């Protein structure tokens, strides 16, 4: 069992009710599996899109990217900088 940090931003932080947490998952795993675990732990995140934009260790990542113990997954609403 590993521990993965999860960060929520902007509207997704409002859905989750927090900006940061950690979830316990069997590692190695995938970004998609971490998001599935997040949906279980944070009921408000059921409102996330089916395939949200995500970052792994501060870089945009595909949902099938490998996640290891101690990694950080961030859930990113549609980007609107500028």
């Amino acid at each position: 069992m590993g521990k993965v940090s999860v960060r929520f931003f902007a509207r997704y932080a409002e859905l989750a009710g927090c900006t940061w947490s950690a979830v316990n998952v069997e590692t190695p795993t995938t970004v998609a599996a971490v998001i599935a675990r997040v949906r279980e732990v944070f009921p408000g995140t059921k409102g996330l899109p089916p395939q949200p934009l995500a970052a792994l260790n501060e870089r945009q990542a595909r949902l099938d990217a490998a996640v290891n113990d101690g990694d950080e997954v961030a859930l990113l609403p549609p980007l609107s900088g500028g």
Partner: protein
Amino acid sequence: MMHLTRHPIDVADVLAEVKGPERGGTCVFVGTVRNDGDVTGIEYSAYEAMALTEIERILGEAQAQWPDSRVILQHRLGLIPVGDASIAIGAAAPHRDDAFAVCRFVIEAVKKRLPIWKKEHHSDGTTAWVDPAGKPVAHGP
């Protein structure tokens, strides 16, 4: 220059960062908060660590593609009133074509890649997150 700031952007500072005697063309792009309807300001938030890393990558890619240019950007965060700048990009190159090109490259990359989000503040006290197409996606008090 700090790439992310919570203070008003000074375009003169951006220009000073890129000017040089060997660069004869300079472009500055300034994005300002627009008054859409009853918007009084936009609150910008960011995944700051990732945004800073991504800005370095974007500027590095621009430098690699236009090696004789110099380009810098500053993005403001926090609540920004209508009319104030949210972003400024300065791009200087020996000739104007490259100055325009590198400036355009950077703003388009910012739009696609920076983890930054906007929340509109309205005159009636309500707020709304904005999606990339400029459409409010959720309302709140």
